[in-house]
């Protein structure tokens, strides 16, 4: 095989899309299938330039349906395959990802959210949370990492391949246009030098030997004769997902101990929350911050503890409550006062979060 793309630790200053391409290389991805859509295009641009140097492959498909199904095919062939998309592309991506869920295919998809439903507002949003976590005509047996910056885009893109191949659930890295297009400093590294061993992919089809003679044929279907047969299959996946969920779930929390109010946000919005919480603490407000890193599965235990302990919760996001709906389900039954600050498709500043917190505390 070709030489490694990333050998030694290096400080770099890159756009998020470039980071994703480098991270996929560092994770040992073999092939990318993609269709142009802003703001993920540069993932393909960097990948197509880097791929030949490292013996990797790329296919530009006719649409996101094809990109998703071809990614499923690449995975079934036993290769680390991935795709990247956004916006209306995420909508089309639901059909292949629903199949991947049912066939337990370790697909990896990077989503750079954009404002919707629309064209042209390609800059930024957090409006693809519902789609990514529970979209599709299934039960949402998926893993979704919501990143809050370029270092995390690198770390979690690498992790996404391992999570996908370990648990065999479709895995998503949920970014956004700001993370995609902005430049930030970060450290890139060879995961193996940090003790992260990369899982080897295995073929689902095209295995060694003659089917029917040396081994049974490997046959994958998404068709069932009876409702009960489907029920058994879905329930077995749900049980497995629920069993591994606590191992997969990740979160970040700051100053939540004894806080009078905890601000919850995910992804890049949490950076405004971090700054707001630090400022408010300096002003002697007893405020904390909490961020689910995995939106699917959610860090349920921590969220339940939080709502049991904090008198007030503020949910902040660049959508009209897509994260809030997921959290409220977990918090259901708690007496905590839940306030919201929603700006669909628009960025949120630390100043805005501070102002909203003060408004709630003083009321």
């Amino acid at each position, binding site marked *: 095989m070709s030489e490694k793309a990333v050998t030694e630790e290096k400080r770099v200053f890159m756009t998020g899309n470039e980071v994703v391409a480098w991270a996929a290389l560092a994770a040992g991805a073999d092939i990318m299938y993609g269709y142009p859509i802003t703001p993920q295009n540069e993932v393909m641009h960097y990948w197509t330039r880097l791929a030949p140097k490292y013996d990797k492959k790329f296919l530009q498909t*006719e649409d996101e349906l*094809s990109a998703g*199904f071809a990614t499923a095919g*690449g995975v*079934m062939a036993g290769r680390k395959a991935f795709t990247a998309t956004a916006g209306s592309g995420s909508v089309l991506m639901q059909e292949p990802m629903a*199949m991947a869920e049912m066939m337990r295919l370790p697909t990896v998809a990077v989503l750079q959210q954009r404002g919707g439903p629309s064209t042209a507002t390609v800059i930024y949003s957090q409006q693809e949370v519902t789609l990514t976590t529970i979209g599709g005509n299934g039960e949402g047996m998926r893993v979704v990492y919501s990143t809050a910056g370029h270092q995390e885009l690198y770390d979690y893109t690498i992790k996404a391949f391992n999570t996908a191949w370990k648990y065999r659930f479709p895995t998503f890295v949920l970014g956004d246009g700001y993370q995609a297009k902005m430049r930030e400093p970060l450290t890139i590294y060879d995961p193996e030098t940090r003790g992260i061993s990369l899982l080897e992919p295995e073929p689902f089809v*095209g295995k060694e030997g003659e*089917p029917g003679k040396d081994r049974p044929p490997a046959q994958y279907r998404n068709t069932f004769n009876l409702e009960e047969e489907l029920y058994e299959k879905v329930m077995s996946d749900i049980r497995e997902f629920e069993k591994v969920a606590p191992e997969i779930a990740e979160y970040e929390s700051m100053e939540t101990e004894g806080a009078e109010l905890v601000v919850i946000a995910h992804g890049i919005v949490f950076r405004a929350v971090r700054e707001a919480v630090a400022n408010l603490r300096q002003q002697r407000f007893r405020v904390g911050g909490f961020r689910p890193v995995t939106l699917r599965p959610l860090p349920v235990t921590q969220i339940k503890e939080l709502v049991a302990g904090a008198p007030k919760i503020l949910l902040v996001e660049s959508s009209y409550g897509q994260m809030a709906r997921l959290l409220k389900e977990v918090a259901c039954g708690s007496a905590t006062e839940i306030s919201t600050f929603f700006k669909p498709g628009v960025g949120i500043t630390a100043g805005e979060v501070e102002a909203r917190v003060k408004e709630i505390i003083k009321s």
Partner: protein
Amino acid sequence: MQPAPVMPKTWRVDTKPHKFCPGCGHGLILKCLGEAIDDLEIQSRVVYGCDIGCSLLSWDLFNLDTVQAHHGRTTPVMTGIKRARPELICIAYMGDGGGYSIGVQHLVSSAMRNEKITVIVANNTQYAMTGGQMAPTTLPGQKTETSPFGRDPGTTGMPFRGAEMISSIVQEGAYVARGSIANLRQLTGYLKKALKNQIEGKGFSFVEALSSCPTNWRTDAARTWEFIEKDMAGYFKVGEIKIPGRGEVTADA
């Protein structure tokens, strides 16, 4: 004692009898495909993909590694496998709804990219599994559940000649043919040539097979054969359309 039916070596005996309706063409086409795979001795290298619609009933028909994909999406799944592992021989099998309607963008695009896969479309002029609705291939005047007074070309267009469309967009190296369950030896020959074309890495290969659906056509045996051999074959010309090294050839050759 009845003699054991002759089955291709690549067929799974334990899943027989197969699940198609009496008189259905799928079993015949897939028998031809099995024989073609047997003759080429490629069983251990083939990945077989079937679509949604009646073709999905073949998900456990063969002793082949198999993926049953979503409606129209078998072509991109097989494309994805082939691109990732070019040494595998990828076959996408679907009906005319999957190939010419919901998945037509995949068929067109994979043909234009000259994907080294083999696509087989069984054409029975309607959507069979969903109960016999009009398809792009439904003949003028043909009654279906969504054209109960007969297909009106004035409002629904003319039947889609898929093989001719493919042959007009592929590049040199592609193989395009239309066979029929009315001539199984010829159909097996076309399927073998299509697979050989993929094995030799020449280009995209495509075979449409005229097929039957007496269940939804509501035809008896005599009318079923007449419909395939006269009505269908009169509009969809049987023959090789594109052969590598020979350019465009006239149908009915």
